[in-house]
């Protein structure tokens, strides 16, 4: 090994810089809270509009949903100026994202069909309510989990 005589404190400071820069990249990449709240609200509005079966409400709901979603995604893309290395997310991160998605979809679909079978009015809208809450509450928590996961990985790997 060819290690010059640099003071250990300097080495520790250098490692702190490495970790800080990685945290900077990770934080730049996380989906912000406002995106989750926005998606939750848009989804509820859209499903409620569809289920109303009122022509003009469906039209307005569709337009608002499309414009709102496009705006949110555009804002997110403009904010994310760099892509975090896939290896930092890893299998555990991917599983967390997949688990979050599948759980919300399963809850929404199961609840919607169950309420419909029971003859409850507005089953889709009611079925989407826990999904929207799950997005608004769970989305930011998922991001916190992913952040912890990414920052817990060794600073120089694995690749």
């Amino acid at each position: 090994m060819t290690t010059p005589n640099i003071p250990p404190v300097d080495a520790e400071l250098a490692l702190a810089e490495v970790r800080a820069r990685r945290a900077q990249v990770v934080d730049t990449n996380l989906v912000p809270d406002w995106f989750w709240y926005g998606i939750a609200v848009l989804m509820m509005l859209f499903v409620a509009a569809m289920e109303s079966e009122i022509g003009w409400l469906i039209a307005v709901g569709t337009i608002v949903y499309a414009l709102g979603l496009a705006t949110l995604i555009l804002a997110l893309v403009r904010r994310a100026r760099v892509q975090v290395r896939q290896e930092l997310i890893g299998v555990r991160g991917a599983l967390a994202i997949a688990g979050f998605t599948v759980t919300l979809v399963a809850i929404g679909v199961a609840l919607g069909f169950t309420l419909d079978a029971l003859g409850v009015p507005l089953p889709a809208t009611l079925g989407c309510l826990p999904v929207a809450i799950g997005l608004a509450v769970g989305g930011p928590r998922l991001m916190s989990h992913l952040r912890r996961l990414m920052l817990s990985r060794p600073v120089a790997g694995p690749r």
Partner: protein
Amino acid sequence: MTGTPRFDELIHAPTRLSLVSLLAATEWAEFKFLRDSIGLSDSALSKQLTTLEEAGYVDIRKSFVGKRPRTSARLTPVGQQAFADHVAALQEIVARAGLAVLPDQLTH
């Protein structure tokens, strides 16, 4: 990628350490992101990237988004290995001095 402790003078220079640390956490990183993150001028960042590119540590890609040129950079496999080795060397220095127990040494 596991690092074999090897101190790298090229990477250790403060600005380049910041730059390589950012690149180590990203896929392709835009020039603007790197410039704004580190707080360098365009010319200073270009110079540092060229130094790293000449060492084989960095790939630089120039593309166009519409009519606007966009420059991006990423660490090459050689650069990733050099960075991993350098970090391992730093960790070894710290560990030998018994200065601190790094989070990296506690996990994985």
